């Protein structure tokens, strides 16, 4: 395996009494798809908020390519090559789909170079060419999700943080997005994926991290993780009434 692109050491985030993320450590290997799974409220999105600098850590440290990034402003982290597709889409409603994606390309890792090409590629990989001229406000939920992915891809990140990119997509669309992500990993990108669709996670991931109530309870290959009794219990426990 290649060197880790991202290392989180003992990262912690408290909201008052609640430890949304409690002393979590993991490393993400370059050119892999690593999935972060866990029941609702486990702290997955909070980990993305910590990695992107949107929410400050209350403990621990984060290194990207060997450099500390915790404490940096969110736009600096983005410029280093970390892009994020939000769980709840945050479109620029008044802009066209193409312009939304173009913002990603203009301010991503490579800055203003090859913006048009990066924009078109993002649109194509997310299957949004047909609606490129429409204002984002007119998109369906599924299209908005894909636009999140397109905007992040256009930034040409080294590390893509995708928060439930498949939610609300039909199986065909899901497969397309997964294939795009796999393709990008083939080209050198690394993906950290949060996803509830377990068959998809099992199919696409090189490695799976399991979070429960803010703690990391498993970390390994997909097939091993699904057999882990603690994981089974966390999921059953969460689903019991």
């Amino acid at each position, binding site marked *: 395996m290649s060197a880790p692109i991202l290392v989180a050491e003992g990262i912690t985030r408290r909201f008052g009494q609640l430890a949304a993320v409690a002393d979590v450590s993991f490393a993400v290997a370059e050119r892999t798809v690593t999935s972060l799974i866990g029941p609702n409220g486990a702290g997955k999105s909070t980990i993305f908020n910590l990695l*992107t600098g*949107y929410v400050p850590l209350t403990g621990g440290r984060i290194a990207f390519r060997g450099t500390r990034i915790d404490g940096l*402003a*969110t*736009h600096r982290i*983005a*410029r280093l090559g970390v*892009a*994020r597709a*939000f769980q709840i889409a*945050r*479109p*620029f*409603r*008044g*802009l*066209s789909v193409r*312009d939304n994606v*173009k*913002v*990603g390309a*203009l*301010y*991503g*890792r490579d800055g*203003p170079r090859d913006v048009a090409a990066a924009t078109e590629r993002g649109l194509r990989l997310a299957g949004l060419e047909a609606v490129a001229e429409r*204002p984002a*406000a*007119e998109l369906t939920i599924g299209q908005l999700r894909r636009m999140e992915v397109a*905007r992040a891809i256009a*930034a040409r990140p080294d590390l893509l943080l995708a928060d439930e990119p498949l939610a609300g997509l039909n199986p065909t669309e899901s497969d397309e997005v997964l294939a795009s992500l796999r393709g990008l990993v083939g080209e050198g990108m690394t993906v950290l994926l949060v996803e509830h669709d377990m068959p998809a996670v099992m199919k696409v991931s090189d490695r799976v991290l399991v979070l429960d109530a803010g703690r990391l309870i498993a970390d390994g290959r997909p097939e091993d993780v699904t057999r882990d009794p603690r994981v089974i219990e966390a999921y059953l426990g969460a689903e019991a009434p």
Partner: protein
Amino acid sequence: MSARALMSVALGAAAVGGLAWLGTVLSPFHLRVGLSIFLSAGMAIGWYILGGFARYYSFGHTVFVGVGAFAAALTLQTWRFDGWVLQVATGVGAAMAASAVLAAVIALPILRLRGHYFTIAMLAVALVCAEAASAFPVFRGSIGLTLPDVAPPSVRPERFFYWMSLGAVTLAVAVAALIARARLGYGLFAIREDEDAAQMLGVPTTRCKVLAFLASGTITGLMGALYALNLGYITTDSVFRGALSLDMIVNSLVGGMGSLFGPLVGAVVMTLLTKVMLGDFLEYHLAITGLIVVAIVFLAPDGLLGLAEKAWRRVRGGNAGGGADPR
């Protein structure tokens, strides 16, 4: 340059050429109307670079008119040149430099504030600067300052200032249009739509706002210098005027905040309405402006251009889904 951009530039150049030619035939009264429109359009465009692109509403933009006017007056009193080119260049240059410096000094503390806090902070800045212009004897704001008559003897002053302010508006529109097409423009639009999401996509939001504020203040200061040169005599009260700040905002709202045409259309309509048609009721200017704002907010939230766009879509039979920009 794309074909569309080339087309816009050609149309813009033709419009400016036409207006410049009109300057040779219009009566002095109409030249003064044109001059008023250009000055208020230029200020509105200046305001729009931050207020429209990023929706950071400054309620105190008259501070740049005032600082520009005072900088022009004070430098032209200190250094007396012969010839209108040198005089105008000195006055305008001093105004732009002073506005840029002021913008740079207040930008960082004030643009860390978001939305409404920025709006209120600009109001405070304008009040403080107006007080300073009156309170410190060097500025002579309460007695007033006289500016030299810069129009060359061979040209009527109305005509001279008509052309000067047309040139300034052209510059303002060109700068604003370039910003809108540049990376900076996209950053500002992203800030307008969702500042946190913009930042997470890598937009250096503070830097974008500071740059826009610098451009905005400098252009408004330029208009302030021409405003002062045309008046010939200024006091604190005539150039640091809340009504000027209000006009810049109202012109953009009336025309529509969807594009640069908004503040232009708004300046034309509002100047004709308040200064020409209702010119005998100048003391009611603020009341009339207030009524128009209320009417716009309720009847045409996307401004006159938004209204026209809706009507156009209806005529063409498409469904009028409102503007592309529900803000």
